[in-house]
């Protein structure tokens, strides 16, 4: 089993490289005939990736979220799965190249961090803690997807406004679709992240009692980001925001979240570290 898992761990980045190539070709060329092979291949590889994560968990007797390699692999899977669902929904594979590039980057990071996992933290055998991590990662993936669709909206809108209609204009789906996908991804990201954070608070409370958030800036940043996203969604529903405003919100909300996390992790260290 271990040999098989090692083999799949090597094959996955290679498979994502191949799929990236298919999506890139699809984006650059104008083939709009039905039955794009890349879509089926992506679903196949995501299936294999999911199976790999499950078998890895069974083999090592823990949820595969203990190491940096496992974390990045889960991140790759969650972004890939979120995109694949979006592609199924709006039946357009032209945006795939951007998402598969992110999936590939995360999976390559996972491969770089691979190797001997060492001692596996006991908490990764706890289903509640692990569900917290998985929900948080999937929530984060939703926000990633939302920000990328937001960016595409801004780019396409700018081309339409400037009347400089290039490749972006020709290949991206309509603004209305990009807006809908960005909003849907953000909503599901906020819901999943909210559930993940709530479970995280529960686990922390059960383990450590009452937490002072100022002592744990990682949690504070995640909570603030969640509140910001939720407020943004409520405002957009109540008052109405233009597609461009939503695009900027999705993009800069995400970048601010990432920047804040990066500062906190480098300055203060993580609340729970990965090996």
């Amino acid at each position, binding site marked *: 089993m271990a040999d098989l898992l090692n083999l799949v761990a090597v094959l996955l980045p290679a498979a994502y490289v191949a799929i990236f190539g298919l999506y890139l070709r699809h984006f650059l060329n104008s083939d709009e005939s039905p039955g794009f092979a890349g879509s089926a291949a992506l679903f196949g590889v995501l299936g294999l990736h999911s199976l790999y994560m499950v078998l890895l968990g069974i083999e090592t007797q823990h949820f595969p979220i203990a190491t940096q390699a496992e974390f990045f692999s889960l991140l790759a899977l969650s972004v890939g799965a979120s995109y694949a669902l979006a592609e199924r929904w709006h039946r357009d594979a032209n945006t795939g190249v951007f998402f598969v590039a992110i999936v590939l980057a995360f999976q390559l990071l996972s491969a770089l961090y691979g190797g001997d996992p060492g001692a596996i933290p006991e908490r990764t055998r706890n289903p509640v803690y692990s569900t917290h991590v998985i929900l948080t990662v999937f929530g984060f993936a939703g926000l990633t997807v939302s920000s990328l669709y937001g960016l595409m909206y801004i780019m396409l809108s700018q081309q339409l406004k400037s009347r400089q209609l290039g490749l972006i204009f020709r290949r991206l*789906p309509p603004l209305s679709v990009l807006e809908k996908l960005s909003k849907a991804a953000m909503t599901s990201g906020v819901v999943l992240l909210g559930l993940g954070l709530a479970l995280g608070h529960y686990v922390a409370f059960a383990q450590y009692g009452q937490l002072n958030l100022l002592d744990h800036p990682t949690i504070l940043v995640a909570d603030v980001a969640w509140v910001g996203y939720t407020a943004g969604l409520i405002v957009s529903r109540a008052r109405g925001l233009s*597609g461009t405003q939503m695009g900027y919100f999705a993009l800069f909300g995400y970048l601010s979240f990432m920047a804040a996390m990066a500062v906190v992790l480098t300055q203060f260290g993580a609340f729970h570290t990965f090996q």
Partner: protein
Amino acid sequence: MMPASSSLKLLTFSHKNTSLTERDRLAYTYDQIVDFIPRANAELGGELGIVSTCNRTEFYRYGPTLDDLWAELGPLVADFKDLDLDSIGSPVGKRGVEAARHLFRVSASLESMALGENEILGQVKDAHRLILEADTDSSTIERLFQFAVRAGKDVRTDTALCEGTVSVSSVAVDLAQKIFGDFSDRTILLLGAGETAETAAQHFSADGASDFLVVNRSRDRGAALADKFNGRFAPLDDLQQALAESDIAVVATGSQEPLITRQMLQDVTQKRRHDSTFLIDISNPRNVEPSAANLPSVYLYNMDDLQSVVNANKEARREEIPKVESIIDHYVEEWEHWLQQQRVTPTISTLARYFEDARQRELDRHDGLSEDERSRLEAFSKGLIKKLLHDPITNLREAVDENALSSEELEFVWSLYNLRDFEDGNHED
């Protein structure tokens, strides 16, 4: 089997060399093509394929070379179409590789009036299907059309020749689609009820729009246009409300002052909760204040903007021509290679049978040989024939691979050994 001296020839009547009236007279329906092909093949020998569209009628014939194909084919066409041959101008003729190249260029739409149009590929596909339906032995010409369809497909998938639209009204619809996707749940406002607004409405209607709102100074004209598209009419005083209800506005009035101001649109976007609004101002002078284009969810295009998109699309298509030409070159090479293979394979097999026949006849002349002597002579003669044929066959195959074998050279091989007589059973010792 088609003689090695067979060749491909094309006669074309197109928008480049024939008037519309002549093209109309020469146009073939699909049923006529299926009827005419077997008739022409029986009369002239060889294989015929016909491409007939509103811009061209072209005859592609592969078969024994005729000095003047139109002199032979013209009377058949005149008889079939019941027209006076003298009333039709002369076709442009091409032969061999240039004829094949022409068909591939047609399929790629390089020969079309509108560069990069898509319809022609479907018409070449139909021409290919009709050759098959004509139910005659047309394997070579059928293969030529197969190559043409493949070339046309490759051009459309591997180049941007057919991308972007090249008419103002199509560009307007394209832009609207890029903002809203489909129009099934979108409202189209027609400000003005003239011919321009009606034409625009027809384009949007053809692309799925069904909810039209007409605003016009004159109630009668406005209501009449609204009725035509099962839409609603609103007076000019209700323009702001109409804009708030609409996703797309086609502005085509004769007003000398802007009817839609920036302030009006600012209020409208608030009412629309910042949903996108696409304004197409095709009035002269402009009827939408240009500064309205700076509002975040407003996309404003005037006539000049649309025309510049058309020009850019045309230019982008022209820039793709070298890529298209290289795809066509590739298929011309493939076609030539295939054709030479078709010619050389029967030559090699006939040559081999000719030598085997000679060997057998020579052996039969030696009676009274013992079993052992005969078997040694068999082995010797087979070896000798094999050696004698090795170089000619290898050279023929290499010449095909290098596209270096002419019809005349191949014909020379046939005449050198009287292979045609041998094939017909008239060979003498």
